[in-house]
């Protein structure tokens, strides 16, 4: 099992529903976010191109945060989901400085926190909160090892990219372009 997410940049309108759903579902402290919207404008006026992406932890298969964690607090859970065990985290911030996506933050209680792919929902067979609320159905979550899953089919039929693959992280969040 290899969990992954695909965000359709042609459907995403940047409404921030995923951000709010995540904050509500996961009780994210005020002023922090586990997922966020990036709007990238390329070109000079009037020849402009806009890409909107919903970003989060990339749940890398070769995660630098897991590698540099001195206590095994950052670890791979079932399906390759990268998690932080808060009672093992000492707050050294090695994982924050090693994440090229800056996807982690310091929880006000001191431990390091980040997107969990809503593992508590996934274990019950549900989609992550961000995916389930997306009004344009721009996000797909599923198992890359199952060739019939929605995400495998989308990746097979659409052009896609991942973020900074050259950092060697083998990210598991993809962007359909």
């Amino acid at each position, binding site marked *: 099992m290899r969990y992954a997410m695909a965000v359709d940049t042609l459907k995403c309108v940047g409404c*921030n529903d995923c*951000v709010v759903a995540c904050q509500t579902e996961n009780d994210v402290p005020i*002023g*922090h*976010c586990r997922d*966020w*919207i*990036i*709007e*990238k*404008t*390329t*070109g*000079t006026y009037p020849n402009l191109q806009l890409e909107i992406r919903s*970003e989060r932890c990339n749940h890398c298969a070769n995660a*630098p945060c897991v*590698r*540099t*964690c*001195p*206590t*095994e*607090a950052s670890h791979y859970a079932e399906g390759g989901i990268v998690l932080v065990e*808060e*009672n*093992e*985290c*000492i*707050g*050294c*911030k*090695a994982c*924050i*400085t*090693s*994440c*090229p*996506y*800056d996807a*982690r*933050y*310091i929880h006000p*209680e*001191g*431990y*390091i926190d980040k997107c969990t792919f809503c593992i508590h929902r996934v274990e019950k067979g549900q989609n992550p909160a961000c995916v389930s609320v997306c009004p344009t159905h721009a996000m797909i979550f599923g198992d890359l090892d199952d060739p019939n899953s929605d995400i495998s089919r989308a990746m097979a039929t659409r052009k896609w990219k991942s*973020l*900074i693959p*050259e*950092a*060697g992280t083998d990210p598991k969040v993809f962007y359909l372009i």
Partner: protein
Amino acid sequence: MIEEIITSGRMNPEIDPVLHVWGWEIPFYLFLGGISAGILIFSAYFTLRNRQDELPVAVKWMPIAVPFLIGIGLISLLLDLSHVLYAWQLFTNIRWESPMSWGAWTLMIITPLSIAWVAIWLEDIFPNWDWKFDEVKTIIEWLKAQRRILAQVLILLSIILGMYTGILLSAFNARPFWNTSILGPLFLTSGLSASAALISYFSKSEVEKRLFTRIDIILIGIELFMIIHLFMGHLAGTQVHIQAAQMFLGGAFTVQFWVFVVGLGLVLPVVLEILELKHKYIPAIVPVVLIVAGNLMLRFIVVNAGQASRWLY
């Protein structure tokens, strides 16, 4: 030119807009760790060469500072931890891939060993020293018999301690400025250089002073060579590495690095030390203060610049 404007909805404290999760604590610790490693390496090396009576400050006196320096360093490390009550978790795991893990274990072993190393020499420096308890005397005698083995172990551990402070940073592949393995040897050399300068300052014997001034000149030469290589490596790298180097070649860190670290912290003291060897009068305090301040500054700048450099996407 194609322009790109990126608007981000993320504003996590200490992460955005520029990463700054590490303040003064980490560079200050790296500084103390580097000097401690340097002092222990010199002390243990010259013990193995049987020059303890010729070089008393390097071998016997300076190590007294080490347990205190490491102690202050450990306190500043603990101050940096945001979930400090769980710090003991460091010692329930050995993670070979994480430099922070083997750094923690090295400190765990080197701290008591450095205290033992000081204890071995106390009777030599203070002739009236009395350990009071027979059990302690037996232990000290046993340690003295193991002096050479202890010295070898200390050299190995001190090299790890001095190197890992740099390797720690280079292992974080998200920060292009740190992505160079030369940071390990650079920090080790700069720690050795600061401790050589301190030894030559505190020494009363002309032989010792001149020896450590000469050692320091060579070490500073190596440091300058490594700094040039650091930038050559970055400039021959990818776009993000070139951008990281440019922070020092016209960017925000240019003046503080080239004026304070390279100019006042390396070039000027090396000139003063050469003049000193040629029997010109130079107040001894001047080069040592410049070198130690340059050392501290180097670590602050490297830690800050690394956090300011990033991958763009």
